[in-house]
Structure formats: structure tokens, C-alpha cells
């Protein structure tokens, strides 16, 4: 299939047009159309692995077209093992997020579904673009629908959260664009050609000082998105205010844009700066602070959803730690952990959403003993909690272990500090579980909460299966990422002095 990637990329956009064509009052039709298109996108994305050759170096299924010739920007998309995993994750999570809003749809649903579809195309574009300008475009496209999803459909402090999210990320992305432009002009200076083509820009040789400046420009863009400590405070606000689908997409996919940016751009384009010892130490220190500090803040949260939001800070700390271990284990562990975090956090946010729909509260102290009335919910929640806490034979452990082994190989202290995060992680998750699910049924209001419905069971089912599948048989994921990660590591090693 020659244009499979473009098909996957623009199917949600086609869905968006279809949704816009339906009158606002026909909200059932809108809901159906949106779900249909996101499901179709997911099914189409399942074809990608069939045409993808694992272990072949470089990008595959590349599509190239001239776009803005005057500045050298192209429509250039392609895929490697790393983006393959993230694309599949994106289409799956988007479809599930779309479906989880089924009961909340109403007359106001048109814009909502349109925004969700736009978001999906944006995220897919970020993971598929090989042209820096195109990448930047998709990167900022993602902001707009998320701004509206939080700002219109969110909780009481939605406008504060939406603006904070928008401005914070936009500010970061401006610096990222500056970094891209610097690269662009440096390349033009050396080769006399203006291009944003990633595969070309990689050949540029930079003055060490300039390389570091560019690194930090990109860093600001990516670090806000991850979010790395201390750029993380937009995250809890955005998560708490966002509707369930928004939180799921934000945590599962949008955060991965930041880590993906480091792996796709910072490391290969700026290998010397990425390996500069003080920069590596700074990055690792920020990651370790995020791991411990994020977990500590989780311990004190009273809001169920905010706790899970902060847990992302801690978990993404592991992902960035793996990246800046700069070796095969660390990087592949990081990519796999990004997928795992996408799965387990999506589960956790979906479950909070289910509870909120029933009880209209997220205060942990409003619950207790729910396992007695919602056994299926409690079972899935336990799986999500232990997957997130890194129990072997569930997916989280695979990533944690690989990242820690990568970190350990570079510096034992990094791993030694990192494992404290595993202890604290288990602590806040199990305490959350204990306070909400176990103990006596504290409030009469909770006695008649209904257990998971068929639709809810079907939504969580693929994620639960994936959590077990990756935990027991992670080899396909490792095979997918091994060759691109190896290329990055070789590129880093080739400039090592």
C-alpha cells in the first residue's frame, strides 16, 4: 500500500470533515461518525506492521512531496520501529478515548468530537513527520484541540488550566522552533541548500557552542511537554480539569511527544551536546528529581485524578533517565516504557473517569470499600495499579528493569536513586488502592454504584490484555526498537572523542 501512512494520518481529519458536515442536532450521528473514523484509523494502522520490515535500518514507507518550496519545507513522513510503536499506541488510545465519551455526548458534542479527531491527526503527524517544519506544524496543531477540550468541556477551573497548558507549551515550542531554524540556517551555510529534511540535517557539523544552544532550545520545547522537573506544574491542572478522554490522550500520547522529540531530534541531530557530561548529568539529575519528587507529591494528594497526574511526572522521569543513559538498554527501555505508561495510565485515567461519572467526586476520602460493590472494577484497577507499580509479568516491569539496567551500566548511583522511585511508586499506588477499594464501605452513597458496564469492560479489555502480553512476552517490542535505537547509539558513539 503506497500511501498507507498518509491514509492513517489523514483518516481522522476526514472524520473531522464528516463530523462538521453533520448538523449539530444530530449528535448521535456525530458520535457514531467520530467513533467510526477513529476505529477505522486504528484498523488501518494495524496494517502498518504488515508492510513494515523489522530490523531494516532507516525510515520506511517514506512519502515525500514538495510543500513550500520557497523555504524548503516538504511533506515528508516515514516510520521506524520507535515511531511504529507510538503510532499504534496513538491510534488505539485515540479510539478508546473516543469511545469512553459515549455517554457524555450531547448537543455540545460536535466541536468535542471534531477536536478529538483533530488531536489524533496532530499526534500522528508528530510521530510520523521527518521534516522539522512539518513536525513543528503538527506539534502546535495538537495544542489547539486540547485547549478547547480542556477549556470548554473541563471542570470548574478549566479556563485557568487550559490557558496555562496552552501558553506554557507554546512558549516551549517557540524555543524549539528557534532551535530548528538555527539548524536550518547552519545547514544552509554549509551545504547551500535550505531544507528541513531530518535525514539531511543530520549531516550538519555544528560548532560545539552553537550545538549546545540548539540543544537547550529544543530542550525547552520537549521538557515542557514531557514534562520534566521543574516544568511540570501545568500537568496536574490540565489533567484534573480535562474530561476523561482529554486526560487519557494527554497522559498517554501528548507527554510522549516530548520524550519522542528527545529521541528523534536531540540525540541524533545534536550528538555532541547530548553527550556533553555536564548536560547528561543535568538531564539525569532532573530525571531523578522528577522520579522521587513526583512520587513524594503523589503521597500527599487527596484528589484521585491529581494523584495519577503526578504519577506521570515520576514515570516519565524514568523515561528521560533511560534516554540520557544513552545506551541500548536505556533507550529501548525508555521507548518501551513510554508505550507501557501509555497503557497503564490510560487505564488509570479511564477508571477514575468511570467512577466520576457515577459518583461525581474524585476525593479519595469519599470512597473506601468499593471492591465490595464493584468487583470487576476493583480487579481492573488492581491490574492497572500493579502494572504501573512495575510488578513482573505485567508490562511496567519490563521497561523499569531495562531502563534501570541501562542507567546502572553508566552510573550505579543513578540506578540506586531510581529504585527509590519504585518503592515510593508502590507506596502511593497501593495506598490509593487501599483507601478507595479496600476496607469497610464508608458511605451509603457508594453502596449502589454499578459495576463496569459492557461498554466499559470492552474499553479496558484491550489495555488489560496488552499489559499482560507485554509483561509476559515483550520480545516483539524489543525487536521493533532494537535497530533504530542501535542506529542512535552508534551515531552517538561515532562522535565520542
Amino acid at each position: 500500500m503506497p500511501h498507507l501512512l498518509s491514509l492513517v494520518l489523514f483518516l481522522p481529519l476526514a472524520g473531522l470533515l464528516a463530523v462538521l458536515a453533520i448538523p449539530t442536532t444530530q449528535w448521535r450521528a456525530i458520535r457514531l461518525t467520530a467513533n467510526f473514523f477513529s476505529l477505522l484509523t486504528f484498523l488501518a494502522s494495524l496494517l502498518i506492521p504488515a508492510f513494515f520490515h523489522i530490523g531494516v535500518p532507516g525510515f520506511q514507507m517514506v512519502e515525500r512531496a514538495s510543500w513550500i518550496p520557497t523555504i524548503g519545507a516538504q511533506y515528508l513522513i516515514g516510520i521506524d520501529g520507535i515511531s511504529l510503536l507510538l503510532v499504534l499506541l496513538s491510534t488505539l488510545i485515540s479510539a478508546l478515548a473516543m469511545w469512553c465519551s459515549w455517554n457524555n455526548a450531547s448537543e455540545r458534542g460536535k466541536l468535542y468530537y471534531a477536536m478529538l479527531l483533530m488531536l489524533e491527526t496532530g499526534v500522528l503527524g508528530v510521530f510520523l513527520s521527518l521534516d522539522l517544519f512539518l513536525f513543528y506544524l503538527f506539534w502546535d496543531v495538537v495544542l489547539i484541540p486540547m485547549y478547547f477540550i480542556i477549556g470548554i468541556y473541563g471542570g470548574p477551573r478549566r479556563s485557568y488550566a487550559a490557558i496555562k497548558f496552552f501558553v506554557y507549551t507554546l512558549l516551549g515550542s517557540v524555543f524549539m522552533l528557534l532551535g530548528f531554524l538555527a539548524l536550518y540556517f547552519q545547514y544552509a551555510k554549509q551545504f547551500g541548500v535550505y531544507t528541513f529534511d531530518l535525514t539531511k540535517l543530520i549531516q550538519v557539523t555544528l560548532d560545539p557552542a552553537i550545538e549546545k544552544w540548539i540543544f537547550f532550545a529544543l530542550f525547552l520545547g520537549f521538557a515542557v511537554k514531557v514534562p520534566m522537573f521543574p516544568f511540570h506544574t501545568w500537568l496536574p491542572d490540565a489533567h484534573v480539569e480535562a474530561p476523561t478522554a482529554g486526560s487519557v490522550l494527554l497522559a498517554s500520547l501528548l507527554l510522549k511527544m516530548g520524550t519522542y522529540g528527545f529521541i528523534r531530534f536531540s540525540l541524533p541531530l545534536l550528538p555532541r551536546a547530548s553527550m556533553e557530561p555536564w548536560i547528561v548529568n543535568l538531564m539525569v539529575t532532573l530525571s531523578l528529581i522528577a522520579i522521587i519528587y513526583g512520587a513524594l507529591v503523589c503521597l500527599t494528594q487527596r484528589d484521585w485524578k491529581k494523584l495519577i497526574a503526578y504519577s506521570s511526572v515520576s514515570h516519565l522521569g524514568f523515561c528521560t533517565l533511560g534516554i540520557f543513559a544513552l545506551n541500548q538498554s536505556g533507550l529501548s527501555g525508555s521507548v518501551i516504557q513510554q508505550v507501557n505508561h501509555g497503557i497503564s495510565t490510560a487505564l488509570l485515567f479511564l477508571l477514575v473517569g468511570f467512577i466520576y461519572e457515577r459518583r461525581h467526586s474524585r476525593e479519595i476520602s469519599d470512597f473506601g470499600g468499593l471492591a465490595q460493590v464493584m468487583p470487576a472494577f476493583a480487579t481492573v484497577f488492581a491490574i492497572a495499579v500493579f502494572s504501573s507499580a512495575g510488578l513482573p509479568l505485567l508490562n511496567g516491569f519490563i521497561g523499569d528493569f531495562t531502563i534501570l539496567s541501562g542507567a546502572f551500566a553508566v552510573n550505579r548511583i543513578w540506578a540506586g536513586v531510581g529504585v527509590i522511585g519504585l518503592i515510593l511508586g508502590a507506596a502511593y499506588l497501593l495506598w490509593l488502592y487501599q483507601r478507595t477499594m479496600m476496607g469497610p464501605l464508608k458511605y451509603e452513597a457508594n453502596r449502589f454504584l454499578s459495576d463496569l458496564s459492557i461498554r466499559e469492560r470492552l474499553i479496558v479489555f484491550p489495555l488489560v490484555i496488552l499489559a499482560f502480553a507485554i509483561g509476559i512476552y515483550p520480545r516483539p517490542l524489543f525487536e521493533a526498537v532494537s535497530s533504530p535505537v542501535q542506529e542512535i547509539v552508534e551515531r552517538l558513539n561515532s562522535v565520542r572523542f
Partner: protein
Amino acid sequence: MVIAAEQGGALLAGTLALPLAAVLLILVFGGRRIAAGDRPTSRPGLVAATAAVLSLLLSVGCVLIYWKAQNRYFAPELHISGGEWIPGFGPTLGLMLDRLSAVLLLLVDGIGLMVIVYSLGYMRDERDQSRFYAALLFFIAMMKLLVLADNYLLLFAGWEGVGFASYLLIGYHFERWKAAQAATQAFLVNRIADVGFLLGILALFEVYGTLNFRGIHADGIPRPAVIGIASALLFGALGKSAQIPFHVWLPDAMEGPTPVSALIHSATMVCAGVYLIARSSTIFDAAPEIGRGMAILGVATALFAATVALVENDIKRVLAYSTISQIGFMFLALGVGAYNVAIFHLFTHAFFKSLLFLGAGSVIHALHGNQNLKEMGGLRRKMPVTFATMTIAAAALAGVPGLAGFFSKDQVLDAALLAPGGRLLFAAGLFTSLLTAIYSGRLIFLVFFGERARRSGVAPAHGSPPLMLAPMLILSGGCIAAGYFLPIHWSQWPVLLTTGIAALLGIWVAYRYYIAQPEARTALDIRFAPLAKLLRNRWYVDAIYEEQLVDRFVMRMAHGATVVDNTIIDGSVNGFAWSTRQMSRLSRWIDRYLIDGLVQFTSHGLRFLASPARALQSGAVQTYAFLFIAGLLAALGYFIVRTR
């Protein structure tokens, strides 16, 4: 026969897969929880019992094939490999059966079967049968994974798996807040130790490039690396085996149903740490200083836990502290390098301690859930089988000559004495033996002798069903026979004699203070009141952990971090936003009043200057006409005057 060995390998996978398949079966077809009042279904229990029988048979088959292959062809072990689990860490999907794992495999399946049969009676009235049996079988599968794994990574998977099963089963009655808390606490305390183990695994991989047991050796490995690995593994083992400083979780784990305590929290899982160290003997042999530390820690734990067991009044907690104490003996043996002795004690201990727990369960069952020793008494006539079997087990624990515990404990003390500087270890161990005999005697005397201290409203005791008694009878046979599996060290007769005397002396002391002269005990209690208080508060360790470590340290840090996050970090973001808004307000002011003001000023100025002219331009035609005519007349007048 090579084929036999290969079949054996497949059989190993089978014995692991079988309980897991049964777990799935129970979860899928086990039926839902039922409302109060209905009779619970017995299906999950029957499936579990069938699976346990088959699983034991398969394991026996494995061991027999291994035995045959070893005798005939000197094959070192049965082995099966399934490639990589986590790529990059070598072939980590492999199972192996050697002498060490054979002992533990049979123990897990054997005690597991006994406990499941017992549960058919004990748990008969519980509402959620599926969850109980599924978790129990999952535990058995994970424990077998732990002992059969041929590498550290898979062992760790089993290690965490049994921890998870333990969490599920401690929290079986999750609707009770204490059970929920105990489950969480057990998992978290273990997690602390487990990350040490995890670091040890990472170090092992870095040093050896493999995690397979066969690739581990001590030649040419730098000493710091060996010491580091040994301490990391020891750290992990101390957690799982509830040794100082991690012991606090085990007594609280008694919140789980009693059959669970018998299987997981006495006979098998808590001994996993002993197995880990015995499995890593190559490394510990190369790090004798760690071994010395381990021996001291072991004997200290044994002594400490025995003192607490002396004064505990909850029957299950007495047994829990006793378990901690006995595992302390195993660590003492491991520390002095007597790995097979440690495993021997593990083996005998499994019989008498699981029997003691099953007996305790029988008593608790008869007393409708009462676990307080002070409210028991005189049960020997009402429950003769429980009385007889529990007495055998308690005597074995106390170390009465001829029973299992006597021989294994004797060998532990023997090994301790032979170690360098072992006299002190021996003396402390011997004293602990004396205490062991005292609390064992106290337990039996308080439960079965004297008169029952009745509380009002307590229903009379009833006997236990045969399904509960049969496993107890079988295990009591084990308590007698298990001691003869290793040759008796007759040459070390002074040690044999001393430990025998210590046991009998201890029982006599218990008899004196609990049967013959109870009033002497009260006198003793008053005389040593501060000591008694210290022991009753478990040396204040639990309190110190909870108040100082968790509340004061961790939670304070957590609150500190939250405050920092809300004020400094988010504050600076909001501050930045605020200052941006202020800046924009300022620039709006400047724009409106200075820049625009200048523009306005200019225009106003011009307008002022132009105002006379504007006054003329009123737009009224009459005015224009008047001015026009007036101007015309004025001009005419001017010209007329001029020409004149």
C-alpha cells in the same frame, strides 16, 4: 537416558503450567460471589484440590526422573530453556531441577496440597471461594517458578509473584481495615528489600554478563563487586524472610486466613530468602564477611523474635514470631556456610510450623474466630486430634529429642559452633532454643490445659471436620520423620545432649509457670515489669517505624515536596504569568496614556488651533449666506473706499 531427562524438562514446564491453568479455570468458570445466606459453591475448591494433586504428582515425576538420570548418567540437573524473556539479558526463560530445587518443589506442592484440602473444610463458609483458591494456586505456581528458575531474572519474577499472591491473600478479607493495611504494609516492606535484590541482579549482569546460575562463579571477580552483590542479595532475602530490620510485616500478615499463614507465611514463601542465599552460595562463599554479618543478624533475629513470642497473646502472632525466630536459625546456618543445614532446617520447619498453623486454625475455627490465648484453655478433651497433632508439632519446634526440629536445630548449632568465633553464636542460639521450648510449651498449656476462661456470650467449642484433621495427621507424621533425612551427627554428642536438655528444660519452665504454679508467673511479671513491657511492645520496633520513619520522615518529605510544588515551582509559573499580565497592563497604560496620549495631544492641539476656523464652519447655509453677503459687501465697500 537422555530422552528421559528431556521429558523431565517438559514435565517441569508442565508442573508450572498446571496450577496456572487451574487459576484461569477457576477465574473463568468459578462463578460469582454470592449473597449472604446462600451456600457457597464448592467448585473452585474441588478444582484447586484436583490441580494440587496433579501438580504434586507431576513434581514427584520430575524428581524421580531427575533421581534416575542422576544415578545412572550423572546428569547434573533437569533443564528446559525457552529463549529470552527480556531481550538483552541472555536466555532468561529456563527451568532447572537440581537437589536444592527438588527439596523445595516437593515441599511447596506437598504442603500446598495439605493446605488446600484443609481449606475445603476451613474456608467452607466463605463467600468468595474463587478468589481464595485462584490466589492460592497462583501462589503455588509462582513459588514453583521461584524455585525452578534457572536464572536470577525469572527467579525475581517468581519472587515478586509470590509477594503479589501474599498481598492478595493477606488482604483476602479486604473489607476489614486491618487486613487491608497489613496487605499493603507487607507488600511495601518487601518492595524496599526487593529493590536491593534488583540492584543485585543488575550488578550480577554487569559482572558476569549473564544471569544464569551456571554462569555465576567467584574466580577473578573483584572483591568489592562480590561484596556488593552479596549484600544486595542478602538485603532482598532479609525482606522476604522477615528478618531484622524487615520483620514487622510478618506478624501483621496474620490477618490473612489461617491456611494461608500455614502455607505462605511459615512453610514456603518466607523461606524464599533462605533459598536465594543457598542458591547463591558461590557468591557468599567468596564474601565471608557478609556471611559473618548474616550469622549475627540471624541469631539476633532468632533471639529477638523468641522473646516477643514469649509474651504474645494472639495464637497466630506467637506462631508468626516463632517463624521469624526459626528462619533466624536458618540464616545463622547460612551465615556460617552450612547451606545444606539451613535447607534441612527449612525442610523440618515447614512440617511442624505449617501443622502448628493448621492446628491453630482448627482451634480458632472451634472458638468461632477467637485468637486470644488468654481466652482459651482446656480444649484437649474437646479436640483430641488437634491436641495430639499440635503437641507433636510444638514438641518438634521445641526440639524434643527424636522429633524433626531437634535434629535440624542441633545441626544448625553444631555448624555455628564450628565456625570461627562461633561460641557466642552457639550460646545465643542455645539460649534461643530454651526460649523456643518455653513459648512452645506455653502455647500448648494455654490452649489445651487448664480451664477455659469464658467470656459471656461466647459459643461453646466444636470439633473440626475430617477434611481439616486429615492433613494435620499427615503433617504430624512429617514432624516425626523429617528429622531423619540427613545423617545424625552422633560424633557431636555434646551438642546433641545440650540442645536436648535445653528443650526439656524449657518445657519444664513452661509447665512450672503455666500449669503448676501460675501465681509464680504473676510474681515474675511484676518483678520484671519493665522487661515485660518492652517485650509486649515488640521492642517498640513497629512503633518506631510507623511514627519515626513513615510519619516523621517520609510523609514530612512528601508534604514538603507538595508545598514546594504548590508555592515555589507552580508559584513561579503563576508569578511569571502574573508579571506578564502586569507587564501587559503597564504597557496598556503606557499605550493609552503616553503613546496614545501623545497622539491625542497632537490631535487635540491641532483641534484647539483650528477651533476658530471650525467655529466658522457651522454648516448652516444662512450663516454662510450671511457671511458671503457680508464679505461681498465689505469687499465692495473696500474697493469703493480705495478708488475714491
